[in-house]
């Protein structure tokens, strides 16, 4: 083994020593958090105090409490990088990703962490979001008559990238008053699924129509009164109301509320928005 190697080994152990050093150096003072502890039966806030670490996010704080003070504190998380959308909860009454919300933002304020309230609470910060996956199953999936590889141009698909960013944190579902206050779960899909239906409807190669689902079926888009709370909370900045819900409402209006369009369809036949060709009347846009 060369001298350089020996030196490197030495350096290697130092590099790791540094890692620990950094953390203890960075700890200055403490932060207090009030966290909801309880389950479906009820519960209350419990206050915890933890040492400060520079740049700490609320999830760091919760995990610190879990490791050192309350081993059974339930929280849902995965990537800790705002990519997976698991750690949604409510901080001071507003839906937030715990991994993206820095503790410093609340300097001088209380930090009160609660689970998402539009869904049944399982325990502590974890709520039961299963209902969303039932809605996912009810959505009419992508279907194309063409065989991939598709020829699709950037200019045709560029507006689909935005709805595709959705990380399914369900915070829009949590904040939506149609679900949260009015409990329209069985007949209303919620903002997340309007986002999905939007890209499906606008996909150049998709042949299905989801307008009936959206108006008459479980979609229930009529319940949405476009008050934009979903857009306000979206952690990946999807303009849910303007770019997903309203375009879908306009398409529903085309189909159900526009007498001129209705008359035109009677006279000229249904036209495919993909190709402009005349298509059948069963709502299925294929077979142009």
């Amino acid at each position, binding site marked *: 083994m060369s001298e350089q190697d020996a030196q490197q080994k030495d350096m290697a152990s130092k590099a790791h020593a540094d890692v620990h050093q950094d953390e203890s150096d960075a700890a200055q003072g403490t932060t207090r958090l009030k966290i909801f502890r309880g389950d479906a039966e009820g519960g209350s806030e419990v206050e915890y105090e933890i040492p400060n670490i520079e740049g700490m996010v609320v999830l760091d704080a919760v995990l610190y409490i879990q490791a050192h003070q309350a081993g059974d504190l339930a929280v849902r998380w995965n990537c800790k990088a705002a990519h997976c959308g698991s750690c949604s909860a*409510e901080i001071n*009454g*507003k839906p937030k990703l715990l991994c993206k919300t820095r503790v410093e933002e609340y300097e001088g304020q209380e930090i009160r962490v609660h689970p998402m*309230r539009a869904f049944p609470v399982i325990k502590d910060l974890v709520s039961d979001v299963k209902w969303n996956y039932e809605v996912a199953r009810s959505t009419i999936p992508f279907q194309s008559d063409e065989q991939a590889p598709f020829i699709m*141009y950037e*200019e*045709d698909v560029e507006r689909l990238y935005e709805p595709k960013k959705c990380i399914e944190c369900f915070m829009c579902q949590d*904040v939506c*008053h*149609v679900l*949260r*206050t*009015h*409990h*329209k779960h069985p007949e209303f899909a919620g903002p997340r699924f309007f986002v999905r239906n939007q890209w499906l*409807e*606008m*996909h*150049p190669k*998709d042949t299905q129509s989801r307008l009936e689902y959206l108006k008459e079926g479980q979609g229930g888009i*009529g*319940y*949405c*009164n*476009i*008050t*934009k*709370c979903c857009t*306000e*909370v979206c952690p990946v*900045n999807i303009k849910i*109301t*303007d770019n997903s819900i*309203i*375009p879908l*409402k*306009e*398409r529903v*209006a*085309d189909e*159900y*509320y*526009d007498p001129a369009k209705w008359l035109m369809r009677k006279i000229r036949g249904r036209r495919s*928005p*993909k*190709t*402009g060709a005349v298509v059948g009347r069963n709502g299925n846009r294929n077979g142009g």
Partner: protein
Amino acid sequence: MSGGTLSWSSFTARFPWWAGSVTTVAILGAFTIYSIFIVFFQPVGEYGGYLLSPMYSPPVPSPIDWLSPAIFVLWIPLGFRLTCYYYRKAYYRAFLWDPPNCSSKAQQREPRSPENYSGERNLWVFNNVHRYFLYGSIIVVAFLLYETIRAFFPDGFGITIGSLLFLLNVVLLSGYTFGCHSMRHLAGGRVDCYSCVRGGNLRRKSFQWVSVLNGRHMFWAWVSLFSVWGADVYVRLLMAGVITDLRLV
């Protein structure tokens, strides 16, 4: 996320949750009362033969003396605003508290019980006629453009404060009208594959232009409201002889 929006949100965060609702109610309420006043009590809205208040354009002769000709015109832009996707948000939140805002505290104060809430399914389903008001508003904007050109000819070509005000008004109103969500849908939003339809590239371009305007629809909605209001008040002040229309050129 720019520093601007951050400081704006921290600025607004200082107000209580009902502050936004109260402001909207105050402004929209005042405007509505003003419009009613115009429609029923002000048959004339023109000054010097070249400044026709935007509330009276296009000029329709009124068959009944005391009824303002504005009543035959004003329903179009008012209907357009009433069914506009932005104003819908504003009045559902401010007047109906459905919800007053997004915080959990405010949502708990929603007055309607789950059985009574139907969103835009029952009464408010009429908002779907928005596109027809859009068609009407485009015609109104065309007339306003004509009136604006006329405003630049007090007696031969000339520029007055009034003409500039009219110009500003028509620009802001166009920004509002042509940035409307229905316009966006019409222009190209409804097309799924631009490269598959005739004239697709033009549709895509128009969609993009409208989208740029639409991105700030709330801004256009408010400033154009104030500009119409302001232009009418200006004309009325001229008529009352309180001020004179200062000529610049």
